[in-house]
């Protein structure tokens, strides 16, 4: 699958399935794929979920998405405003169920880096920062990381800096949550006794070997590994209607 639009839609479909009905889910900045995944979930298999927008709206019925995921136009039709400090209270109570986070680097144990490439004192690349990662990763039951660039430079054995903590962090008693990674090659998770990254599914046109090749460390393969389900025409139409301008392609062009 080489077409970016098809890949975006496949990733959105995969991300949407991480949300269960009755879940509450939050997206942050620069998040076209999560916004569309959350909206798709609400329009399909999770009609009773709570969609909490980083832009401040609850259950918005926006016409389309914009270059800023905080654009107030994405709150159109919302049933309430809910501030980020309130969402964070909810998360501390354990009642924010799903969070979508990005990452510049991610490692074998699910640690993510959004801070610096190189050292923190003397950064080779100053990355934008972790936003909610460090706070939400240990306390949110389902963390979903998305990456449109599955390469050995992003999937590294050990991150340069632990912004968001995976399964090998220093307070393991707190890590009871699940983390899923949806990349442009496949879906990975940590559902094994050692809590290391494993391939759960490979996207159509890609393979286990290709994913391994694009990863800077050795991956496990889930016993029930399979091809990632492809969205049907109805799902693709829903996504297209919410993003007629193709904002979701922006991340594939960088």
């Amino acid at each position: 699958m080489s077409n970016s639009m098809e890949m975006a839609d496949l990733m959105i479909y995969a991300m949407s399935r991480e949300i269960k009905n009755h879940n509450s889910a939050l997206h942050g900045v620069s998040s076209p794929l999560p916004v569309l995944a959350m909206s798709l979930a609400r329009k399909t298999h999770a009609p009773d979920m709570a969609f909490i927008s980083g832009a401040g709206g609850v259950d918005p019925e926006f016409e389309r998405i914009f270059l800023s995921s905080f654009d107030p136009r994405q709150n159109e039709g919302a049933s309430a405003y809910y501030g980020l400090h309130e969402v964070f209270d909810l998360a501390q109570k354990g009642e924010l169920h799903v969070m979508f986070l990005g990452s510049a680097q991610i490692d074998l144990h699910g640690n993510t880096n959004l801070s610096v490439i190189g050292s923190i004192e003397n950064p080779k690349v100053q990355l934008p920062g972790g936003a909610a990662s460090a706070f939400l990763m240990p306390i949110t039951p389902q963390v979903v990381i998305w990456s449109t660039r599955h390469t050995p430079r992003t999937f590294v054995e050990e991150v340069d800096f632990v912004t968001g903590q995976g399964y090998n962090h220093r307070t393991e008693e707190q890590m009871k949550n699940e983390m899923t990674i949806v990349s442009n090659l496949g879906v990975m998770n940590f559902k094994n006794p050692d809590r290391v990254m494993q391939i759960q599914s490979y996207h159509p046109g890609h393979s286990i070997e290709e994913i391994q090749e694009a990863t800077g460390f050795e991956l496990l393969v889930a016993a029930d590994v399979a091809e990632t389900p492809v969205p049907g025409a109805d799902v693709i139409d829903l996504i297209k209607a919410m993003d007629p301008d193709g904002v979701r392609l922006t991340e594939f062009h960088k």
Partner: protein
Amino acid sequence: MKKVLCSFEEAVGLIKDGDVMTTGGATFHRAPMALINEIIRQKKKDLVLVDREPAIDFDILIGAGCVEKVRAGLLAFELLGFAPNFRKKSESGEIITKEGACQPIIAGFRAAAMGIPSLPIRGMLGSDLLDISEVLGSQQQFDDPFTGEKLIAVRAIEPDVAVLHAQQADEFGNVRIEGPKYEDIIKAKAAKTVIVTAEEIVSNEEIRKNPEATSIPHFHVDAVVHAPNGAYPCSCFNRYDADYDHVREYIEAVNNDQFENYLEQYVYGRDAA
């Protein structure tokens, strides 16, 4: 009630070199850009900027040489990419970047708004950000005295100045914010000095017709400036949308070493309204 309506020049006169400053809004939405341009014109120096998720408001101050330190949960231009001046000056060592995370910054503002020195939060454990913060003295692990749970105490963030942009205010500093409030109300309560720019100055009589619409009462506010289009190129809900094409022009200017020309054209070349 004291009249606090004043000019851009007078309002920025309340800001001192080296002040800890926060701004209202989030990313490209309701940032107080017109007032920030006046800060640049008055050549303020060594500001310490703190916010959860700022964008062009912090980046333009950094590019104009007004900033010594930045503490932000995330500083980027959303899908338009890196914050160009922030990245440049952070990598060259011209500014000191203390990268945070959103919750410790929000909780720090909330602590200051409550008038207490720190606030406990969950999360953070295991992040290298926590190690850095413990060294800097902005966060500290502790055991909750009642349950024994390992929590993080976040030190209060009491900015010297908060600069906010709103849709309406009266001459006494009663402020109406329409749409998402972000942490603006918390910041107004946390900061020592609060400057509010407003699209529209309304009468106190108008404010009294609907007290529910008042987001920030006058006693928190030290200065009000009439600033139509005062968030541009950021959006102001119910008034205008963000101008992403202008933001692209800004990024181009920085990346092509034309930032001084950009400032000349859009900041120095223009008087405060």
